[in-house]
């Protein structure tokens, strides 16, 4: 199923939005019914294609937030969580316009590196910045469905508590979750970006040999990946996914 999803020609499928969940003021999750979905690995993404009445098209990639199957009973949904990009072309449509019952063309799943497979041994370290949490949530959900909570640690960097995606589900999670609040936080919480000290306190230590998944804006991923390597993590065990502008110059 998920293994074979990487093979063969990928076709466009018409999914239907079956539910919409508001995650934060700027992000929402589209729950999609997809006919004949071949299944996916946690961490994979899909291409989304929008077509205007005159035939103009725009396409973008979105990470899948749901595990597959999405419940122990074998549910079958594909969740996309869309953070609205100011001045974006596709995200405002997905974030504001499309609604329950509307069709959405998707193609996938795509990607075979930034993924977690249930048969993969060993601890898992997830480190997300902002909407970089989306593919990590798929991994967290898949690992928890596989009963791997003791293996999982999540370090999630967000501006403020209201920016946390999947806040309710994370609060109920039995995995070890730490937040780094960069602008405002609950009373008594340290405010600041992830640094060597935060990593040492919240993440698996390098000698544990965890597979590390880092996803977020480019400067965030560059910083965190450098910190991990400096702390002694094997670079080959650190998988990264970056998005957005490169920040500071080129």
């Amino acid at each position: 199923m998920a293994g074979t999803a990487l093979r063969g020609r990928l076709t466009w499928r018409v999914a239907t939005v079956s539910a919409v969940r508001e995650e934060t003021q700027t992000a929402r999750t589209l729950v999609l019914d997809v006919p004949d979905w071949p299944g996916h690995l946690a961490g994979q993404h899909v291409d989304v294609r929008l077509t205007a009445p005159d035939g103009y098209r725009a396409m973008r990639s979105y990470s899948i937030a749901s595990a597959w199957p999405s419940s122990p009973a074998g549910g079958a949904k594909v969740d996309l969580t869309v953070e609205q990009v100011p001045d974006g072309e596709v995200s405002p449509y997905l974030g504001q316009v499309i609604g329950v019952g509307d069709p959405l063309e998707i193609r996938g799943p795509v990607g075979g590196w930034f993924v977690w497979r249930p048969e993969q041994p060993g601890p898992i370290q997830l480190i997300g910045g902002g909407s970089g949490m989306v593919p990590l949530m798929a991994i967290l959900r898949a690992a928890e469905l596989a009963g791997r909570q003791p293996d999982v640690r999540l370090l999630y960097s967000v501006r403020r508590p209201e920016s946390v995606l999947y806040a309710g589900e994370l609060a109920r999670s039995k995995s070890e979750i730490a937040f780094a609040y960069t602008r405002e936080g609950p009373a008594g919480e340290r405010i600041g970006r992830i640094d060597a000290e935060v990593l040492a306190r919240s993440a698996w230590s390098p000698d544990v040999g965890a597979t590390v998944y880092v996803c977020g804006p480019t400067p965030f991923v560059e910083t965190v990946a450098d910190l991990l390597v400096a702390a002694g993590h094997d670079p080959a065990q650190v998988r990264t996914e970056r998005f957005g502008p490169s920040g500071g110059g080129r």
Partner: protein
Amino acid sequence: MGIVSPGFTGRRRSGPELPPGQYLTEDFPVLSAGPTPQIRPEHWEFTVTTETGEVHRWDWQAFTGLPQEQTVQDLHCVTRWSKLGTSWQGVSLDVLLEDVESAADYALVQCYGGYTTNLPVEDLLDGQAWIAHKFDGEDLAPEHGGPARLLVPHLYLWKSAKWVRGIVLSDTDEPGFWETVGYHEYGDPWREQRYAGD
């Protein structure tokens, strides 16, 4: 055939024609599978290994002493951004392969950090490919592949391997890093060869 997205009008961007499915960016996004390798030029070397096992080797001094070319190129990333008119300096693969005795059809590009990508040798020749070490007149930044990267602008950017350390020539085609996880074997942006089977 597709469907019309109810309520979608899109934001048409005028300007030069882009390959299908691409949009224009002014920024220079960074995409890498892992941490950025920090390679000092004095520790860098580049090798070409032929199908008979013969190795040609350049250290940084020898490499930068080769005839240099300036080139302005459009870049197309499979993640759908395109960046036009980028300025590079580097050494043409025509120069690097000039004295290499080989009849191989395929090249496997190898990088610091373990990344690989494959492409036909003919796509490296005839002024189509460079080992680039300057961008916009400055040393290439590590996150963009510095000190040196392959530049093959007529293919999707994942073929323009960052932190390049060598090319292995072979009679048989061996898929590289992304090619083994579902991406297209060749990657022509104008034919929209994104994924296996496209």
